[in-house]
């Protein structure tokens, strides 16, 4: 996946201790990011097995080189509408959570960005409470805002339901 190769245009100053690397991804045009070290794999469209009776956020499970990975539909998790007219199949980002693998289904994966902490902001209080729950903060980028996803909370399905 060439997206995973860090862009070579970073200046030395940016690679200082003040930066953190994020894998960026898009859902419904919104840019999200998760720390690059939590990402295990980036996958193209996969055959996902439905799991009956599972919470609706659980898209199913898939086979990643012999390991069973639970797929989470981030769209549904963020209370966004399901994608209409499957124009382009989605992608997924596999993360490791306490030894369990989860695949986050998203629309597409962007590049890896090194972001300076100076550009980091806390969640604005006006943010939707559900989003506030899953967002660890916001990065101001040129012309865009990046929402840092809190993967732990995103995967803690029992929590938001209870």
């Amino acid at each position, binding site marked *: 996946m060439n997206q995973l190769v860090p862009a070579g245009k970073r200046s030395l100053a940016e690679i200082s201790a003040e930066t953190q690397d994020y894998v960026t991804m898009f859902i419904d045009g919104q840019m999200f990011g998760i720390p690059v070290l939590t990402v295990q794999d980036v996958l193209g469209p996969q055959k996902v097995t439905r799991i009956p009776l599972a919470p609706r956020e*659980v898209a199913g499970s898939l086979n990643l080189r012999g390991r069973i990975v*639970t797929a989470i539909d981030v769209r549904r998790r963020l209370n966004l509408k399901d994608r209409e007219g499957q124009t382009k199949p989605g992608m997924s980002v596999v993360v490791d959570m306490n030894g369990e693998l989860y695949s986050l289904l998203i629309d597409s994966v962007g590049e890896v960005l090194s972001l300076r902490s100076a550009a980091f902001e806390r969640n604005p209080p006006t943010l939707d409470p559900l989003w506030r729950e899953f967002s660890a903060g916001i990065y101001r980028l040129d012309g865009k805002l990046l929402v840092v996803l809190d993967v732990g909370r995103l995967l803690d399905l029992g929590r938001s339901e209870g």
Partner: protein
Amino acid sequence: MDDLLSEFLTETSESISVLDVALVNLEQNPNDREILQNIFRLVHTIKGTCGFLGLPRLEAVAHSAENVLGKFRDGELEVGAHAVTLILTSIDRIKLILSHLEQHEAEPEGNDQDLISQLNAMAEGKPPGAAASAPPPPPPPPQPSVSKKEPLPGEVSDEELQRIFDATPGPADMAPPPAPPPAQEQSQPAHPSEPHEAKGGLPATQAESKAPAMSGDAKESAVAAQTIRVNVELLENLMTLVSELVLTRNQLLQMVRGRDDSEFSAPLQRLSHITTDLQEGVMKTRMQPIGNAWAKLPRIVRDLSVETGKKIDLQMIGAETELDRQVLELIKDPLTHMVRNSADHGLEGVEDRRKAGKPELGKIVLNAYHEGGHIIIEINDDGRGLNMGRIRQKIVQNGLASEAELDSMSDQQIQQYIFKAGFSTAEKVTSVSGRGVGMDVVRTNIEKIGGTIELKSVEGKGTNFTIKIPLTLAIVSALIVECGGERFAIPQISVLELVRTTGTSENAIEMINNAPVLRLRDRLLPLVSLKSLLKLGKADEELAETFIVVAQVGTYTFGIIVDRVFDTEEIVVKPVAPILRNITMFSGNTILGDGSVIMILDPNGIAAATGAMAGSSQAAEQAHLKDLHGEEKTSLLVFRAGGADLKAVPLALVARLEEVDVASVELSHGKPVVQYRGHLMPLIMVSEHCQLQKEGRQAVLVFSDHERSMGLVVDEIVDIVEDILKIEITVAQPGLIGTAVIAGRATDVIDAGFYLTQAFGDWFGVTKETSAFGEEQGGKRILLVDDSLFFRNLLTPLLSVAGFEVTAVEGVDKALALREQGASFDAIISDIEMPGLNGFQFAEAVRGDARWMTVPMIALSSHATEKDFERGRKVGFNDYVAKFDRDALLETLSQIVTGGAA
């Protein structure tokens, strides 16, 4: 061998090999404190363990060696080559004793005074006699002084050693192989004193010392060689690899399946076998008796009983039950915790128990056993049980539920709260338990491995925990089904049978107020629709055909309606992600041969989901089961002969299945016979419609009795099935007992006895053993009590032919009615397992009344164990014969009847 001892041997062998290396290092770096410290510790450990195990000889040697090492460590003695040799010698001696221990589980006779005195001398810092004299260490480089100083003692020491050797009785008493090491150990001290120049001139000594050393190496403790310690992680990896191998194998098999001519078939078959063996082997390496997890419990309970002043009796049943190591590790702590809880909270103090009218000695019973692919572990105590009042109070206090909510809950539901985090009702926190961490952790741990924990508690009576955990987390065989477009796996172990239903077949699904049921043979099977259960769509979509998987959970049998059934596959069970663990319908998931992920259905969960139904029909279920048990299953051989309809005969009566070459069939008196194993075997047709094949090979069922054989000509052997043999329709036609439903098909059960008498008119009569009584038995009356029509029909002709007059009845009440009518018999043959009154009760009834009190009785049963025999004797049976054992029955009968007459 004693576990403790074998563990000691393994451990000590390991320490000793470490020691060998360490000592050699020490010799090179005599001033390395760390090495010295290490060696000292190892020897000290050996000494300590020996003392603990009561091995005085070993202990003495280790003790002396330790003394010397202590001096080295404290710097009181210099480490020299001689000293190291002496220590090595001691180690060799320890090895020798160990190897004897291993073979005989006892220390060898004899003593090690020679060695000990040398060691002691060394410890005291003086040379041990003239012979092995190590130079006192003062000169800083000891080695040169050794070589210069003693050109002669080398020879002297040989003699000396010989003397010591002769004087040491120990090794001589042993089996020859262990003998060499002493030679080695005694020649070794000589080494350092041998001048270097002399070495070449003393080849004999060298050879002598080397050869034994080699034999010693070769004999490296057999225990140590038999068991090696393997990193658990390695085993886990191995298991994962094997699991993947199994999956790949399955994938390959699926690809080749259906292509008969594939050149891959044969090697693949071989690969398949090897994989299976490998899988089993690796699985075995991971199985451990559950007793390993219990080993610490007696001690914990003992300490607790001292600490709390309670009297506790810990009983452990089924410690040998094996389960996967991984599972064992995970339940070890929960189990310990629960037993601790039982001892600390569960059981009352002596005083309280006495007040409650219980015996002072409180009981904790651990019971482990296998049940349907699971291990069940029960932890029972007869203590005070859960205090409902306090639990309620605590629940409200912690804000887990309100009073009103609690009022609507059953006691059982309320009790479940003890599994919540931070919940402890113990009044005070003891050192043992009561911190409120625990039961929630126990539950989490058990659920982590796909297990369940149930709690039953009666206040004042005690508490019962039932833990159910999978036998292994690894590989199971599963049936793959499809429902609503999704595939699922059902563990084969809970599948009883498959039924195919179509709208028109006799097996149609019927509805009682929207609850689907199926008439299966002579009972009503409750059904659940997987589709509606898993919300995969509407259940009422009519399909041309559906399948019903008949599953059994505990005592509850039910059918699961699915759309399609594929075949069975070996699957590697992987636990579902934690976020899905609350879906009780699934016990795990797996990857199929084609690489797709599928969910594994949990029949327990499905049964629980239909729980209300199960509860109400429980009683009826029980009653039905009793019925079922009343009729045992019989192995039946199903075949076709003279027509398309199925015929069956009890497999136990058939000696062999043969194919005879039609060309070899000869005629004798116009009847077909073949030469078979040196005798003529008549071939009998099942009916006149039946004919021998024109050419090729003819399938024949061979019935044998002593040297005689009879071949029953059949067209085709269909199957061997195990089913309840219940004759539904009886027919007058000779050769047929009647028609029964076998494996779901109407099948004619043939009367083997009829054909046997056709082959040899005297089949039952004239064998040597029985012929002697043949005539005398005329007119002897036998009462045959058996609930199975089949056996009555089988035995009646058999006994009649043998010359008895037989009255057969189907139950004890009928038999007793005959007694009331004044009938009298010379002998009674009775089945044991019968509905209503069983054979034992029948015998008691017979013996308890004057009329038939003296009539000999023979028990007839398929379970002829020693215990049954004993019981039979006790209630008044004269003898006990296994069903199907014609000879034994006839012989016994003859003896009893004639004996009784004489």
